[in-house]
């Protein structure tokens, strides 16, 4: 009863000063909008990065060799020896180099060429658009063949069919046998800009047999840990117990690293947006103080007619809560629309979660309460005689 009355009075007072009320709410509106949009975009990009990492394959294990003393790499045989019949399905060492690719008058500078074996396709889950990927026999025969990433193929050939054509990589002839499907950019760089050739061909092409990067596929997601243990013990033996000589990473580790980075980023963005909410709250306090001064006489009349301290307190607190709550609701609507629009523009799913909406709304209400108490208290403690005399 009493609360409904106070709410009616608050709404009437807000409506009687529309422009001022709107400007006061604007601080809260901008704050809530910023919190929702920034947190949603943060969460959306986290989700998109996560799904990119997950699309790398949940069985994937990456081994990087840093080396120990003079022994800075593995030989091909030792790398292939990591294979384990129980837990590991496939192993593909990778040697990369940078070349200039040419077809006729078209050329692409500093393109990455990866030497990989036939298992690489299944390990990295590579999709071929036309032709085929590297086969084990290409590797064994050290064939001068190449598979092109989507962008490389477009730049060299335009709309001509590249299959069967001969390109020059640093002057050596390679026959194009396949083109990869476009994957879009990912955090681990894009295959779209790469060229793949057989690993053993790479040994001679790059005059390099040192393996520093190995992609390994575990037999199932459940055996990833066991496979890592096997790899770890084999590498420890090779590098004589030096754990710093190599690094074994799987998808979940990459995920947790990336997640901790994006979580920090989201928190930072949310924090900055939260500051604007706080500033909005100070705006509410400012206007409420002005309002109390302006309505000193009204407060005096109400007190003379029998309003208790808590009646006046309630009236002004509800007024500031209404301002901040209304601002919060408008902010949620604008923030929702903004994050959907930005999400579409950035090609991520920036759908605000319920918890984000609830959190920012309750924060705005708390801000209203916190900054409303002081002016309301000031109003409630006015001396009725002085308030009545106030002009």
């Amino acid at each position: 009863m009493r609360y409904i009355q106070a709410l009616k009075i608050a709404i009437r007072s807000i409506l009687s000063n529309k422009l001022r009320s709107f400007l006061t709410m604007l601080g809260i509106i901008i704050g809530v909008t910023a919190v929702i949009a920034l947190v949603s975009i943060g969460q959306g990009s986290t989700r998109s990065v996560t799904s990119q990492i997950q699309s790398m394959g949940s069985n994937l294990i990456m081994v990087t060799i840093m080396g120990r003393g003079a022994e800075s790499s593995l030989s091909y045989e030792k790398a292939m020896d990591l294979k384990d019949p129980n837990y590991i399905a496939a192993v593909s060492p990778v040697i990369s180099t940078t070349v200039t690719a040419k077809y006729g008058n078209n050329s692409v500078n500093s393109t990455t060429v990866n030497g990989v074996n036939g298992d690489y396709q299944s390990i990295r889950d590579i999709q071929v658009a036309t032709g085929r990927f590297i086969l084990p026999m290409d590797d064994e025969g050290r064939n001068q063949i190449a598979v092109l990433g989507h962008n490389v193929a477009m730049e060299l050939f335009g709309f001509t069919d590249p299959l069967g054509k001969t390109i020059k990589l640093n002057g050596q002839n390679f026959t194009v046998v396949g083109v990869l499907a476009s994957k879009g950019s990912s955090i681990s760089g894009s295959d779209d800009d790469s060229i793949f050739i057989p690993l053993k061909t790479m040994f001679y092409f790059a005059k390099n047999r040192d393996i520093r990067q190995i992609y390994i596929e575990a037999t199932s997601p459940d055996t990833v840990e066991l496979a890592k243990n096997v790899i770890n013990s084999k590498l420890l033996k090779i590098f004589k117990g030096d754990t710093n000589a190599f690094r074994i990473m799987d998808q979940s580790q990459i995920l947790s690293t990336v997640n901790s980075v994006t979580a920090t980023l989201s928190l930072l963005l949310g924090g900055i947006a939260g500051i604007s909410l706080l500033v909005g709250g100070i705006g509410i306090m400012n206007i409420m103080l002005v309002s109390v001064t302006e309505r000193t006489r009204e407060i005096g009349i109400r007190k003379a007619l029998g309003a208790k301290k808590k009646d006046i307190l309630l009236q002004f607190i509800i007024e500031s809560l209404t301002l901040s709550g209304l601002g919060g609701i408008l902010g949620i609507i604008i923030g929702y629309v903004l994050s959907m629009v930005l999400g579409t523009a950035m090609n991520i799913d920036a759908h605000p979660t319920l918890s984000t909406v609830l959190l920012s709304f309750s924060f705005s209400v708390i801000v209203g309460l916190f900054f409303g108490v002081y002016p309301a208290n000031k109003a409630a403690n006015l001396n009725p005689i002085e308030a009545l005399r106030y002009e």
Partner: protein
Amino acid sequence: MSNILIKIRNLTKIYKMGENEVRALDGINLDIQEGEFVSIVGQSGSGKTTLMNIIGCLDVKTFGEYFLNGIDTSKLSDNQLADLRCREIGFVFQNFNLLQKMTALENVELPMIYKGVPTKERRERAELLLEMVGLKDRMNHRPNELSGGQQQRVAIARALANNPHIILADEPTGNLDSKSGSEIMKIIKELNEKGNTVVLITHDPNIAAQTKRIVRIKDGRILENEVVTP
């Protein structure tokens, strides 16, 4: 003339203005009985407004005793004083003191809101009171759409809202032309004839002459306490 409604004994009010003490009221003794029509008359600065504020429970005394309807006001908290104002006292001010953003009807409802009267009952009583002061067709007008006399009638209706024991009128005709002023005085006299206790504060001898008892006050003391013979 039975029940003593207001009993004031040796009432003193001292204001501190810097280092000087100002005795606004200095040993007032006054009894007002139920159903009386009393005017408190004095020049400005005589202390009559201070006396009214204390009778109206808006202010508290420095020394002395003030019993309102048997209740010792010196023992009450701010909230209890507010409650007492709400139930026992109806104010009529010189400058009306209506809330400008509310209609006449809502203004009359206001004291009942603070008393906790249910919405329907509140509305009905407010309508009845406005009808009584002759504003039946002006109920939904705001104060700035009403004349001074009409505004004061709204204020009288508001003063009666909680059926208080005392109507406390501070220069009720001070801001009105003589015609509206005499209309307001007529309403106040009628209220007294119906049994309401009315305390009227004024500096105007002509107004005071229309009441049944005149209390003259000067420099914070009661100068004279005369019964008007009609």
